[in-house]
């Protein structure tokens, strides 16, 4: 059973296009995240959602818009793709971050490798 899944695994597209990445988790978690990993393998948080409510928008351009139709899904839509958007995007999930007084472990998906030409 795949705990956190993402589609597609690879995405190659032209500059200026609009694309979406989908994420689903079957862990029963309440919180979901999007991270970006650059070419130097550095992971940085972009968004977090708790029970479909946006919690973090970490200085991400407005071209990136997350959407959570329910607490098991968090999708990422990117408008007007730029060369600098090329990276690996990871979805993650955890138990409800607002219900615990300690850091909740985040479980990551396999990643979506985006290449903008």
């Amino acid at each position, binding site marked *: 059973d795949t705990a956190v899944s993402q589609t597609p695994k690879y995405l190659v597209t032209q500059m200026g296009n609009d694309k979406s990445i989908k994420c689903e988790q079957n862990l029963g978690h309440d919180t979901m995240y999007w991270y970006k990993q650059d070419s130097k393998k550095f*992971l940085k*948080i972009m968004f977090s959602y708790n029970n479909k409510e946006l*919690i973090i928008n970490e200085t991400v351009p407005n071209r990136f818009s997350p959407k959570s139709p329910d607490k098991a899904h968090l999708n990422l839509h990117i408008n007007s793709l730029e060369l600098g958007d090329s990276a690996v995007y990871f979805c993650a999930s*955890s138990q409800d*971050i607002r219900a615990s007084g300690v*850091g909740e*472990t*985040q479980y*990551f998906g*396999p990643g979506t490798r985006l290449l903008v030409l």
Partner: protein
Amino acid sequence: EDQVTQSPEALRLQEGESSSLNCSYTVSGLRGLFWYRQDPGKGPEFLFTLYSAGEEKEKERLKATLTKKESFLHITAPKPEDSATYLCAVQARWSGNTGKLIFGQGTTLQVKP
């Protein structure tokens, strides 16, 4: 500013040669420190969570320890299948309601047979 620094950046070991990876952190109150393993082309795989200084956790050949300033990932008698990038991340107390993890740049471990 909260930050995480991992050292060394790369480590080559012979099979069976034990060593340690370091994760130094500066954070205004620690809510949790996390170790992950990442294989090429895959997502980070959870290894350990540590919450307070003095805490230790073990799993097979790996042991993670935590002090107030750093964490170590000790690898005992490593095997080639332990080759991967090991990532350290912290969650600050002020970010408790956001879940924000601050990652280090990782240590890439290569274990030769």
